[in-house]
């Protein structure tokens, strides 16, 4: 008789706090900055990513914790921590990480940049000629775009922009006998890194804010300036869309975006050694507590180094460019429709394989007189997106174009609204999301008439239709024409447009309808099937694992003997406990490209099932978003997925293993040969010619 673990008691020891797990992830990002094997500018980039991530974390998560604290609603998390405990643990860990980051910046990054003739200088270090040139540059090009703001009893404290670099000034105006204050916002329209025509070889810069600060007198003419410093505030951007009527969603978002300017500050960043008097005044005005004031031994906003890197990048200092591979199955046809009809399913693995095919597919559809309709979900769209341009073209060509635009994509809202409006004007049918649900599935459906009959083509992906992120995120797309999946996706579009109630799905599962049940039933099935001699097996690759119910079922499945491998790049709230740890293996890979594919494998008693999805294992994915989960049935794609998963599970180079104590550990024997992202690229190079051969075989058989 098999032991039943359905009653196995789940306690707080089975969980890791979500915020702390996220900080661990960000710490792994920072590790990449510390990794001497990475070229210097890549290391700087990871440091910038770390800071950028932290900004978002404060805007949403820390803001959320603080609100919870203020509302005095005490909800403990799964690990038993209340909001106060969480907040203090988060701040402690964050400050520790930041200290590491700034030390590293000073001790390693800057010296190494200098060794490569890249200098970030102080004003005082410059020669008289350099200073003179800068003075001229300031007066001509910078001063005209600055707006100094004075604050006194008649000029109230202004609304400061989120994440903007500001300079605070304490001064006394001529003919006034009291102190007053002023601000200058460091303009984001020009680069923060002001180049200096250096006499030495190489490139040198000074920070824009420093140049402004040495010229403060020109901005506050006639004033007596006591002290000044640069600072930066981060605001609470955690807002929920109430269940608004769909038609009002656009207006609502526009209104919300305007009102975000007025949101309260959640963090104040200043440099160490800044004037205490000025700090005290700012603190009072921003109504911010001491623990939310961060003081750095170095420049503020390291995230801005993103824009610095392209200015100084050269061979040897950045990663070698990986040329996206061509896909023979798609190259050998004049039409992508023809290729998909022939192959039924064609996988694309970005960024190792080009995202251009997706754009090409859409462009072909837009111009094909036989195409009747195009339906697509758009989430985070890149600036001047070729995807949007193709959709515009299609609408202009008289196709029925339906676009579901998700306006709530975090922090990209304004950009999304712009594209959505353009699409609407071109005659496309634009749906602004579904009330209460974020549309997170990525699907593109083309309806085409072929000799009088309707044929449908699909592109599904784990990643967004964004040609920019497709270059830096690993994502997997799939072209396919399976009639049942096409029919399911058609129905899903009808649900999203509000045209129909959800049907009974033929092959897919979709959140928030049945995806949770589907995942649970797949996990439970492994547990049921598992025997001592033939353990069940689950391999799940995702970005985050947070959902409590799924974690409980995973623990129980592990107790029942199921071997569970979790490739979770980011947050993982599952803690391998003493009893289940021998069966649960959690690996996180943070590498050059952001791991973003979601692949799910279930052993199913010897008939393995493979799935791809837009969804992570987070409650927000399963309950509050429209997500898509679909089987991969073609053997050659299954084999490919297996190899990818295998490569990742054996990545001793950038893979980190989660221990029972909640920390992640490097392998003791780091082997560059096992680096899975390189391995994947090599694998694709080898695999693709195989497909070419398979294709020829098909042709021969038919002729035979």
């Amino acid at each position, binding site marked *: 008789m098999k032991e039943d673990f359905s009653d196995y008691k789940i306690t707080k020891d089975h969980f890791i706090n979500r915020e702390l797990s996220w900080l661990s992830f960000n710490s792994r990002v920072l590790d990449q900055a510390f990794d001497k094997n990475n070229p210097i500018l890549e290391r700087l980039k990871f440091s910038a990513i770390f800071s950028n991530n932290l900004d978002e974390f404060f805007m949403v998560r820390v803001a959320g914790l603080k609100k919870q604290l203020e509302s005095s609603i005490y909800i403990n998390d799964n690990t038993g921590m209340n909001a106060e405990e969480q907040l203090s643990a988060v701040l402690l860990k964050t400050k520790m990480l930041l200290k590491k980051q700034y030390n590293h910046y000073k001790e390693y990054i800057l010296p190494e940049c200098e060794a490569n003739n890249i200098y970030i200088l102080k004003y005082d270090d410059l020669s008289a000629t350099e200073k003179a040139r800068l003075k001229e540059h300031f007066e001509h090009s910078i001063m005209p775009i600055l707006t100094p703001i004075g604050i006194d009893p008649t000029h109230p404290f202004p609304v400061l922009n989120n994440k903007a670099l500001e300079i605070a000034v304490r001064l006394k105006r001529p003919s006034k006998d009291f102190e007053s204050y002023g601000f200058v916002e460091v303009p984001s329209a020009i680069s923060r890194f002001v180049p200096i025509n250096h006499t030495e070889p190489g490139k040198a810069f000074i920070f824009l804010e420093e140049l402004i600060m040495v010229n403060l007198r020109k901005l506050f003419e006639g004033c007596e300036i006591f002290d000044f410093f640069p600072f930066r505030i981060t605001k609470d951007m955690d807002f929920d869309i109430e269940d608004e009527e769909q038609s009002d969603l656009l207006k609502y978002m526009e209104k919300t975006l305007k009102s975000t300017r007025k949101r309260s500050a959640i963090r104040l960043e200043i440099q160490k050694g800044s004037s205490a008097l000025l700090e005290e005044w700012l603190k009072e005005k921003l109504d911010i507590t001491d623990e939310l004031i961060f003081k750095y031994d170095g420049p503020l906003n390291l995230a801005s180094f993103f824009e610095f890197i392209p200015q100084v990048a050269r061979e040897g200092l950045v990663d070698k460019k990986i040329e996206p591979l061509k896909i023979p199955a798609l190259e050998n046809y004049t039409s992508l429709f023809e290729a998909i009809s022939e192959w039924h399913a064609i996988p694309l693995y970005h960024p190792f394989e080009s995202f251009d095919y997706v754009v090409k597919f859409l462009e072909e559809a837009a111009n094909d007189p036989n195409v009747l*309709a195009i339906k697509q979900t758009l989430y985070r769209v890149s600036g001047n997106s070729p995807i949007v341009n193709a959709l515009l073209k299609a609408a202009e060509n008289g196709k*029925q174009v339906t676009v579901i635009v998700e306006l709530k994509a975090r922090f990209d809202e304004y950009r999304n609204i712009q594209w959505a409006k353009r699409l609407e004007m071109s005659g496309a049918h634009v749906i602004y999301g579904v009330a209460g649900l974020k549309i997170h599935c990525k699907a593109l459906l083309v309806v085409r008439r072929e000799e009088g*009959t*309707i044929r449908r083509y699909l592109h599904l992906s784990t990643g967004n239709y964004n040609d920019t992120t497709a270059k830096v995120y690993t994502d997997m797309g799939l072209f396919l024409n399976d009639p049942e999946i096409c029919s399911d996706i058609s129905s899903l579009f009808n649900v999203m447009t509000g*045209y*129909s109630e959800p049907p009974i799905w033929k092959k897919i599962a979709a959140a928030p309808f049945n995806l949770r049940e589907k995942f649970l039933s797949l996990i439970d099935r492994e547990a049921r099937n598992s025997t001592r001699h033939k353990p069940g097996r689950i391999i799940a690759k995702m970005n985050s694992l947070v959902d409590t119910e799924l974690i409980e079922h995973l623990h129980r499945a592990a107790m029942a003997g199921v071997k569970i491998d979790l490739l979770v790049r980011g947050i993982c709230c599952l803690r391998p406990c003493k009893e289940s740890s021998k069966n649960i293996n959690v690996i996180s890979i943070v590498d050059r490209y952001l791991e973003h594919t979601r692949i799910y494998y279930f052993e199913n008693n010897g008939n393995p099932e493979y799935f791809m999805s837009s969804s992570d294992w987070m409650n927000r994915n399963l309950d509050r978003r429209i997500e898509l989960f679909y089987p991969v049935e073609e053997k050659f794609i299954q084999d490919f997925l297996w190899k990818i998963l295998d490569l990742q599970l054996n990545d001793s180079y950038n893979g980190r293993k989660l221990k029972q104590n909640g920390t992640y550990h490097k392998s003791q024997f780091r082997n560059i040969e096992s680096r899975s992202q390189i391995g994947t690229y090599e694998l694709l190079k080898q695999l693709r010619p195989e497909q070419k051969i398979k294709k020829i075989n098909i042709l021969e058989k038919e002729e035979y």
Partner: protein
Amino acid sequence: MVNFKSPIAVIDVGAHFARLEIVQASSKGKKYETLEKLSNVAPLGIDVFTRGKISTQNTFLIGKILKDYSAVIKEYDVKYIKAVATSAVREASNSDIFIERVEKLSGIRLQELDSTLESRLLFMAIKNSFMQSPLFTEKNALICSVGTGATLVSFVEKGILKSSENTRLGSLRLLEELERPLANIHLKEVIKPFVESSAKDMLAHSTVNFKNGIMIGVGSSVRALLRLSDKMQLDENGMRFIDIANFDDLYLQISEMKTDEIAGKLGISDTLAQSIEPCCAILYHFFHASNAEKIIIPDISTRDAIVSDFIRELKNEHDPFTPYIISSVKSFGEKFFYDPKHASMVASMSMHIFENTHFLHGLNEKDALLLSVAAYLHDIGLYVSSRKHHKHSYYLIRNAHIPGISSKDIEIISLIARYHRGGFPKNTHSEYQILGSEDKVKVNALAAILRIADSLDFIHKFEIAKIKFDHRKKVMEIILDGIVDAVLENWAAKQKANLFKEVFGYKVRITGR
């Protein structure tokens, strides 16, 4: 020429839902492939059975849903659309206004589907679903389609449709008519005798015996109801069924469940859940009154049937239902002790004359069917009285529920029978006056033919050997097979041929061979 490859769309607006299905002919042997299937909750039933008409709110709702549907239809470049409205709209007092307004809002015009046409579609769909099973042709079957406003009951004898009735026992109507002053607990007590007596009455008047037969349950509330039972079984031919003992258990189980419990358990709307208990009661009493041994729940829907029928219509294929119209017409005649020999003879001679006079009337196959039905039933008024029996025939037919014959057509048939003797059609006859001019012409032409056919079967002796025309003299000569001395008939024909002459301008001469 119809392009069968291009997709077609079928919309049906029922009592609980509006649905759209877009299908296209399939290459892989299957009859058709579904491209789109949309479904929306639209509670028209509750409107109609509480207030008698469709509310403005729901009119707008349907308008919006159909507008969305038309957007999807456009995406597939659909050329052929069939949009029908069933029970709820049919019974609504404002159905004309509703259809008009929905068309204004959506561009789609709904067509009201008569209950007789719905019976026909259901029968065809059920028959198809029994393709693999001999049960339908070996046993007698009682078909119960439980709707919100009415239950369509069909009596089938070994695969032959005998008759069909539309009772005013609907799952929501029942609730509405009985519940108001009563607490829920008493509902069953009231439903029971009411439904029981209705079921018994109906079965008592049927000639079909269902002992050891089967009952077939259809409709969305029936399907939902049976999902509540874990005792459903599959027979060797893959048909789902429940036997009487398990159904009785289900009946008891349902009585103890609350509406929200049912809705939660099945994941269905509250109105659909509300209809479950009365639906169960209706099935229960018919089941017991019929003595059938099990209820079969075939996997069909009205929409499937409409789709198949629409495809057939577009392909201009022969209607496979026609034989069942005739079988139920005969069974209707039996109710009134008609003379089957005379009826068949008149029907056959009518057809003979109809076909030969095509150059005169130019009517089509469907009109021939109307004549045929009228020929079978023209004398049933004798059941009431031989005096003015054509008038009795008229109202008996007028109130008949004949599957496959729309209410408009039944009107024409009853008038053809009405004018098989006696005075000619006149605008002073109110029942005739309301017809459109095209239909008036039809009634005249077909009644003229029927009069002749009827006169020729005076003593059930002759068959038509040949029909000849002298176009110069404008004479139609009917040559009979048998005794030449046909004086009696000739005399009768003189009286009976007047209408023919008036309508077509041809005299009729009867000769023998």
